[in-house]
């Protein structure tokens, strides 16, 4: 019964998470909130004892995702250092035609990094706190 209610809710949660991430330039939200929404979509089914294999991460995968997110952020920030510009100057990166376009794309890319870092962190924290709950129902 809970799964029937949860399945469409998960689709909405994932979609809303991605929407908040890519719409951050124009509305409230951004990478941090998007990461938590996606992590919530992965945690919710586990709270009712259901662990879907698709669209979800293992405990190790969650920790690796968190570190990958912060590395993506740092790589984008350090990229401008390589060409002799200040740290985190997205205008120095080859990701757009004009300076505002490059900085706009830079914001989106670092928000993706923040979302990965936060989603991975929160999921890893949930696994660590609820080791029994998170692992017991795995097939």
């Amino acid at each position, binding site marked *: 019964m809970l799964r029937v209610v949860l399945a469409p809710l998960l689709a909405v949660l994932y979609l809303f998470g991605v929407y908040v991430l890519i719409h951050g330039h*124009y509305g409230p939200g951004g990478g941090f909130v998007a990461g938590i929404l996606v992590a919530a979509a992965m945690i919710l089914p586990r709270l009712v004892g259901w662990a879907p294999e698709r669209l979800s991460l293992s405990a190790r995968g969650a920790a690796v995702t968190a570190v990958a997110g912060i590395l993506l952020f740092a790589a984008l920030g350090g990229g401008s250092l390589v060409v002799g510009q200040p740290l985190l100057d997205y205008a120095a990166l080859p990701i757009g035609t004009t300076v505002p*376009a490059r900085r706009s794309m830079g914001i989106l890319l670092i928000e993706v990094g*923040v979302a990965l870092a936060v989603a*991975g*962190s929160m999921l890893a924290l949930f696994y660590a706190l609820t080791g029994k709950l998170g692992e017991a129902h795995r097939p």
Partner: protein
Amino acid sequence: MTFQIEHLLTVMVAASALALIWVRDLFAVVVVLSVYSGLLAILFALMGAVDVAFMEAVVGTTMSTVCFIGLMWWVDPDELTLLSAPRRLLAIAPAVGLGGLLLYGVMALPPFGDPAAPPMVHVSPAYIQGSVADMATPNVVAAVLADYRSFDTMIETAVVVAAVLACLLVLKHRDVPSV
């Protein structure tokens, strides 16, 4: 003074904070904490800080509630004992002192929405006027967080990840399957 929904909400925030002291059941404490965060989120939204409100709603009411419920997995309610009276006093005194200091600090702040407040006349106008021309981003909060002040955001994200990794290392030595 006309009635404003903010006054009612502020009273409700204070009431839920007081309720936290009286409630004894652990699960009830977690729920009241979540209600407290939800009310704060509405207050932030009414004050125009939509990004902060969104964050408080998602982190305060949802994520921390889930983490607290996960934490309750470790706790046996029968083993919990209240602190003895002198120790309780030892905990209350610094809490009241810190609260008093914060209220004292709030008195020195400029009134809410004051156009002459120092942050309003210093960098805010430059950010608000420049964000569309500089990075084609109408949401000034996103522009400040991810570009003008992105160094802060990078280190904050690193702090979150480092804190969670530290939690994993501490909890690894408990009787849970290793991460």
